[in-house]
């Protein structure tokens, strides 16, 4: 069992997550058959979160380029999402590519910059709704992973998104 110290810094936590995800990738290999090609449940959740963050960042970039929203706030919230993207990427198993190769016979996910659904700049209200939906999904995702450090990271990201929802509501 992992023993932890009195407080936990982000750096220490991310080290735990990386170690945990790597261990899960090794021990889970060949034992989990409902995720594609040896992907562990933790990695599956991580990749789902990474895709979600990439798409959210594209939406923020569109909103910022459109210029109709509160640019200072949107810029600040984008920075948080970039920090989340970095933390989630760091949590991938050692040697894993941020974007995995597409499964045979599967078209794979559409890159966010080529997705027609992301072509239009969202309103501030739409961004608020996306943040609320993201925060609402985090409790189940935190419960779904085996690595406790990863669960903490997901929980903390959800709290930041709840904060974004509040700040966008105040505009």
């Amino acid at each position, binding site marked *: 069992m992992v023993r932890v110290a009195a407080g936990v810094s982000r750096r220490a936590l991310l080290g735990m997550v990386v170690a945990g995800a790597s261990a899960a990738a090794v021990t889970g290999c060949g034992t989990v058959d409902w995720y594609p090609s040896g992907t562990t449940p933790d990695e599956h959740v991580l990749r789902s979160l990474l895709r979600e963050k990439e798409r959210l960042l594209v939406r923020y970039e569109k909103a910022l380029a459109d210029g109709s929203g509160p640019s200072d706030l949107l810029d600040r919230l984008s920075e948080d999402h970039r920090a989340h993207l970095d933390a989630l990427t760091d949590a991938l198993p050692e040697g894993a590519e941020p974007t995995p190769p597409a499964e045979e016979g599967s078209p794979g996910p559409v890159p966010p910059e080529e997705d027609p659904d992301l072509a239009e700049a969202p309103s501030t209200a739409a961004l608020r709704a996306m943040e609320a939906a993201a925060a609402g999904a985090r409790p189940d995702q935190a419960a779904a992973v085996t690595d*406790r450090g990863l669960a*903490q990271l*997901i*929980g903390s990201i959800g709290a*930041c998104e709840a904060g974004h929802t509040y700040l966008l509501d105040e505009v």
Partner: protein
Amino acid sequence: MSEESETAGDAVSVLAEALRAEYAAVYAYEFVGGSAGDEDRRSRGLALAGEHKSTRAELREAMLDRDGSPPAVRPTYPLPSDKDGRSIDDFVVGVENTCARAALWLTAADDTDLRTTGTRLLQEATVRALEWGGELDSLPGFEGS
């Protein structure tokens, strides 16, 4: 986190930590509700004392469900030395940040029900801190890197 609650996955230990934070929060908000210098802060303080009492009851029940013993309530908890608006706001933000850190430990529990509860409480504490003028961190609940 205290010595007896060093093991992150131990449900009783992380619940005890969260309960201690809620005891302090109820005490703090009752103080704000009775002593803040303006009616708005007193009113918000009393309302939030009620919310934290509900959370305290929920965590206490979760503790008893797992055959744990809720930690003892201390006779007093830290209070601000000044009662002006800024001092009260800073004090309350600190109280909520303590609740957020305790909730973060719940999100690491092996017990997935507690993880879900911890994730929710972490979100609530983060938003309440913002309502009192706190700053949003990209990873709430963690200490600064």
